[in-house]
């Protein structure tokens, strides 16, 4: 991987997200008091203001809320993959997340597509959650 790839250097509060990704597990904060999931990480629940939470596993099922196809690389690190897609997905648990889709042609992407998480190792330091079209069984289960 290019050495100019932009990587998280997370604070204490943000680091668990990336550490769980490193283990190929998608976990986000869930409020101990009202049960709401939230993303990105933050010290309080925006639904009930509670400071108590757990890093909780989520299903990895999501739908595409929006997408774009990026043409000129706005950072040099993106140059070798243009044109590429970027998406906002909504996790089955509610929160939204910026990511990318894999295993799909850019011109086949649609808002509302069911997708599921897959972990992509950028290098030994960084693994990111990306999404691929959901398998039939998971789509049917929803």
């Amino acid at each position, binding site marked *: 991987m290019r*050495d*100019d*790839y*932009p*990587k*998280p*250097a*997370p*604070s204490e509060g*943000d680091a668990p997200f990336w550490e769980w990704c490193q283990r190929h597990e998608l976990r986000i904060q869930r409020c101990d008091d009202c049960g709401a999931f939230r*993303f*990105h990480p933050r010290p309080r629940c925006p639904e009930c203001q509670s400071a108590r939470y757990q890093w909780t596993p989520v299903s990895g099922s999501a739908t595409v*809320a*929006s*997408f*774009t*196809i*990026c*043409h*000129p690389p*706005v*950072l040099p*690190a*993106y140059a070798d*993959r243009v044109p*590429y897609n*970027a*998406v*906002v997905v*909504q996790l089955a648990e509610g*929160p*939204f*997340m*910026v*990511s*990318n889709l894999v295993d799909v042609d850019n011109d086949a992407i649609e*808002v*509302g597509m069911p997708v599921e998480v897959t972990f992509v190792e*950028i290098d030994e330091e*960084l693994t*990111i959650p*990306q999404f691929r079209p959901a398998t039939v069984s998971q789509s049917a289960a929803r």
Partner: protein
Amino acid sequence: MNSTDIVHERAAIAGIGQTAYAKNLGRTELDLACEAIVAACDDAGFPVADIDGISCYSMEQVTEVALITTLGIKNVSYMAGTPSGGGGAASVVGLAALAVASGQADSVIAFRSRNRSKAASYGADPLQGGRPWAKAGTRLSDWRQWHHPFGVAAPVQEMALIARRHMALFGTKAEHFGMQAVAQRFHASRNPNAIMRNAITLDEWRESRPIAEPIRLPDCSLENDGALAVLVTTPERARDLRQPPVYFLAQAQGGGPIHVGLADYFRTSASWDERDHAGRHIAKQLFARAGVTPDDVDVAMFFDHFTMAIPLSLEQYGFCPLGEGGPMIESGATRWPDGSLPVNTHGGSNGEAFIHGVNDTPEAVRQLRGTSTCQAEGAEIALVTGAITDPSGAILLRR
């Protein structure tokens, strides 16, 4: 007028001033700000040293102290900053009006200075010159860690994701953004201060480079240098100065999420429903206090980092129902001279210049003075807004 806002009949715009807008002026932001402030005072016939308040974006790099010491301002009684880039475009002026209306200051300068062209002289500074996302580095501890590893780093990509959502929900077409781009480039072609003087056709828009689909190059704000300033004073003093005063009807602000945190923007704002998020929240307060309705507005300057902001702003500020912003553009309503609500008659951020939208207020003032190069006939009331995708604010002005 039945405005109940504190700024009504207690504050007026007496002067506007600006530098040239260009791709690379080769001057510091302080130097540009001073030129714009002196020009605004000259426009009004007002002594620079008598400025007693300063209002700007909280991200502004030219400090109050630098202005006071460079321009020989005797002292100031009021200093204020407004959050976000783009969102505060109208609020820098709104804060100045609040200070004057409440008696905290008599004559407040609101300004913005930017040295942001790609080749700007001060490009090594992390906040001046060039593109901030290109200087963020490879170790990200702020919000950028949730976007950059996925290839989303520039505002154009964030706005593309917001625009596509609007298209999916309401049937808005990318060509609606293109039609607004064409209208604004036509407006710019008549504005001698605009950077882009050549009008374009919709076919040329269709053939232009996609940047982040659905957004194409002519939809994007320019990357340029320039500064402008607006002098706000009491109506009594304004009436003794050189220009016909432009009065405030109301000012209002609103919070909410921002495009650089797309997870939160989508959580609360990307359904554009009846929830009270930034634009709708501002519009409710603004029109209620001003005692007027969108039908009373003759001309609007909507903040337009990208032309996709225009349909969203038309809807959130109540000029059309939700989802009708695109068709309203297609009807020609936003295009001077025949449109019912000419929008961004200076050419906006893709035509005149991108000075973080603060250059929208001087154009509203020119409209109400009757001196715009795309003059809306008989314009009496003008709306100026901040970014629809940021913590934001708006002002309503009358002649």
